[in-house]
């Protein structure tokens, strides 16, 4: 073996810059590779998609037919039109919470040692999980909308907003997947990561405008629901589907997406790099 190896003489500063450039150079292809791997998991283990497929149908039927009468009574809208954007966000948050579970599993099984000994971009391990769950939830948006249309949901906000809606859901899910990734690298245990879905996603989605107008809540809860990012993204989606003001919701949603991707995303990557 005559591999010629030239010993590099980088200063720590140049090494750090080099590291960053390297990260960017390979980020796309390494993330694509890891995303492929994680999507193959869904393909080989389709039962893991059961809750993603059945969940929206179940919630749609439950809320529309069980609570719909009570919630929609005396209001000027069709409850299913109100409900569907909420369901899109809620179910897909559940779906992307799998990001952290997958990462924790990889950490537990010692895969990560293999990845960390490879010359791949560091953030691709997390990024691959995030992208895979986001793609699954993106597909699930169309599935949910198809079911909803069958059960009588209609768009009233025009074609362009209706086409933008799935993209907004996907963008928010992508951002929220990084929160789950942070949970995954922090707890490093699939069971704990799994129960975090319950403690993070359930309160966040219920204490918002996902299922009911927040005016019906007691004042202190309204205060929380009003600052809850879920309320903003759900309202944005609702108005995209049904018409209504978009701008203020869009700005707040964009802010949260940026915060989660840049802030939480870097924090998760940083924690991943420090694992030993």
């Amino acid at each position, binding site marked *: 073996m005559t*591999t010629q190896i030239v010993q590099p003489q980088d200063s720590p500063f140049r090494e750090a810059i080099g590291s960053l450039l390297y990260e960017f150079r390979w980020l796309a292809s390494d993330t694509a590779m890891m995303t492929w791997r994680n999507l193959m998991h869904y393909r080989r283990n389709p039962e893991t998609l059961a809750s993603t497929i059945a969940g929206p149908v179940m919630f749609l039927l439950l809320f529309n037919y069980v609570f719909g009468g009570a919630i929609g009574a005396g209001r000027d809208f069709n409850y299913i039109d109100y409900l569907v954007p909420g369901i899109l966000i809620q179910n897909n948050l559940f779906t992307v919470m799998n990001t952290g579970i997958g990462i924790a599993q990889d950490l537990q099984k010692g895969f990560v040692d293999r990845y960390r000994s490879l*010359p791949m971009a560091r953030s691709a391990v997390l990024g691959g999980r995030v992208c895979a769950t986001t793609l699954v939830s993106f597909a699930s948006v169309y599935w949910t909308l198809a079911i909803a249309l069958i059960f009588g949901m209609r768009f009233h906000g025009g074609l362009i907003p209706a086409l933008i809606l799935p993209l907004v859901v996907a963008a928010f899910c992508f951002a929220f997947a990084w929160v789950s990734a942070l949970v995954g690298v922090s707890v490093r245990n699939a069971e704990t990561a799994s129960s975090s879905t319950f403690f993070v996603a359930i309160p966040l989605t219920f204490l918002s405008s996902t299922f009911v107008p927040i005016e019906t809540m007691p004042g202190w809860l309204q205060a929380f629901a009003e600052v809850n990012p879920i309320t903003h993204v759900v309202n944005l989606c609702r108005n995209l589907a049904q018409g209504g003001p978009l701008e203020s919701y869009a700005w707040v949603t964009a802010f949260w997406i940026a915060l989660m991707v840049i802030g939480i995303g870097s924090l998760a990557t940083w924690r991943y790099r420090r694992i030993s």
Partner: protein
Amino acid sequence: MDNAIEVHQISKSYGKVVALENVDLQVRRGSVMGLLGPNGAGKTTLVRILTTLLRPSSGSATVLGYDVVRHARHLRSYIGLAGQSAAVDDLLTGRENIHMAGRLYHMPKRQVQKRADELLNQFDLVDAADRSVKGYSGGMRRRLDLAASLVANPPMIFLDEPTTGLDPRSRLELWDVIRTLVSEGTTVLLTTQYLEEADQLADQITVIDLGKVIAQGTADELKHQAGSEFIEITVRDTEDTKRAASVLSNYAENNECDIDEENNKTSIMVKDGASIMVQVVRSLDTEDIPVANMAVRQPTLDDVFLAITGRTAEEAATESEQDTN
């Protein structure tokens, strides 16, 4: 640069627990270094430092001329790691696992495909190549793990307890694979708690215990360090065992004779096995003790470990387990 690995005074501690203490190590290019020690001795910690997974608390190390901390990113392109956990993806096929590893080494797609075929052939995984790894046996998983770590033809490969938990046949198969690697010029550092494995595969052996290097040398040198051979005599009748023992103990280096009454076996430690054996045979004949079997046994590395540390490898492993608990 003759050494593939240079380790200078590496230490690693976790709070108060010292995993490695002032370890020095040199591994020549193209050779096989066996890192031998009981469970919890610090072998894996050292491998993790050398493969850039862990930063040392102090000291420095270079692998192939790259500093493991400062040039970690460069180094990763030139090393392969096959760990004890066999980090292969259960849900992917064997071929997909190799393919993924190759792509993550940033090899071109075509080249990876070609290399995957080669490796699957070499590791006898062709038939199982397109089945998902879930159904692989333990030995197959290890072979696949090793194949994946070799996809980029790294000049340096780390094998962390490659055969732990394998059945004897799979172990022999894996040994063959490792020998082939070595014959192709790859430098290998392998850790093992099997003394026989280090003896079989390694050119040089480093014995570590409780985070410290306690001995270094070739298998023969280490055996020499234990300083002794063993003469084992099995008598035909159980009642003769005691008499045989008293004869033998006259020749023993330490005047001690081990008696295994169940098997009618007595054994002593001596400096020069062959010539003392002649005398032992004469004396036994004079005493009229019928002998069923006799042998001069070379010391095993187990004896070496005992000679250096005063305890068997097994005892050491139990101790360090208690340490970490």
